[in-house]
């Protein structure tokens, strides 16, 4: 499996979760992905990812948190 960068931003105050993801995007290598964990669906992040050319998949976890997988588009 390709390398995965984990960004665990559960229960952090906005906009720190989005800042952490943007920081991780800078470190993302070819074929790698970001696994982003967050306590609410981060709707403001998605248009930013689209504009920067990244794809994302959203999954609601059993405990109510969200997992977002982010890859280069």
């Amino acid at each position, binding site marked *: 499996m390709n390398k995965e960068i984990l960004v665990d931003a559960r229960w952090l105050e906005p*906009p720190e979760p989005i800042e952490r993801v943007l920081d991780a995007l800078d470190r993302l290598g070819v074929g790698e992905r970001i696994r982003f964990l967050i306590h609410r669906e981060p709707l*403001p992040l998605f248009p930013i990812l689209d504009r920067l050319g990244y794809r994302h998949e959203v999954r609601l976890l059993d405990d109510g948190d969200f997992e977002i997988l982010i890859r280069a588009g």
Partner: protein
Amino acid sequence: MAGLTYDQGPSLVAPLRLFLLAPLFLMLAAVAGIALGPDWLSGRWSPAALALTHLITLGYLGAVMQGALLQMLAVVLGSPMPWSGVLSWCGQLGLGIGSPLLAAGLLFGAPVCLGVASVALALAWLPFLAGVAVALSRALSGGEMDWPLRLAGLALPVTVLTGLALAGALAGLWSVPDLAGLVDLHAGWGLYGWILVLVVGVAYQVVPMLQITPAYPRRVTRALAWLLPAGLLAYTLEVLSGLPGLHWLGLAAAGGGSLVFAAATLTLQQRRRRKLADVTLDFWRLGLAALILSTLLYAGLGVLPDSLRTGAELSLGLLFLLGFAASVVNGMLYKIVPFLAWFNLQSQTGARAGTIPNMREMIDEAAGRRHFRLHVVAVCLLVPAPFLPAWLASLGLLALALSGHGLWLNLRAARAAFLAYGGRL
């Protein structure tokens, strides 16, 4: 899943225009109160008290709530306000001209001022009402969480139309059959139906999201979905029919709803995940404590002797408007404005983390706290003012003017940071 969808919301400029207008009216109300002397302390229906009340409700609270709703209906109902840029201009112009003219008209009994104020305020509110109606009609129902916002959306046109009818009647443009009843409807729907219920609807979203608390429990949102409209309905029927039993029914529903909301919010804030000092939290706690005290004072008005009642009614209005509504609104501004500034800056510049100010850096925490202290002084001196020497009321008004000035400077600082890092308004 509900959440903030800022890609659908307006730019920073539309709400900020109104947010920057609002504190000017807080300062104007305070300076006018000092200039008028103790006249406004003689009772809530005195011309001076009515004038100052409308500078705060229309000029201050009205402008902030218009600005907040311009971006928040998209957030809460998933249905953005249409024509937000135009509505923001109409609000700025209409409230900017209409609020001081209405205050002057009420103060001096000047029909020309009241007539022109009615036209300006119609410009501020009627297009805004149309925007709210379009946004609400497009929105899908999200159940109990939406209820307060929909009820506030109904209370706003009732407040605006009864207000315009009253202003027109006082200007001599037309007559109304029951002036006193219309005044009661206007005040009740405005203060309770619009201000309190809107705060509840907004709190459901912003408290968990921005203060990192658990969501409001289902039993709370379900209870409030019944209690809030029941209180408003009973009050309205009481005004229209005069049946005494309705007063206690309305008091039980509205008072119970207020206490449930305040207690639930304070409990959630106690359980927030990050226990950092936060001026927003302080404003909210003060506001919710004032809401609890307002409810108790309202319930106790009936048993007070006549000698105390006039002063207590004025204290109740000050406690609700300055202690509760203004505190909560101030607290929200310290989250909403930095977040909008940060998000718009990030979106416009595509900046990486660390290269633009984060939310906490948009407004200096110490400056926010100075504003909070001045606000506390103003509330503590003005709420008991009807029972204190007049010079203490003037001191309270001075603190209110300084607190409005502090808020204005802090909002300007967020705007300056946004512009300094390449943001475009």
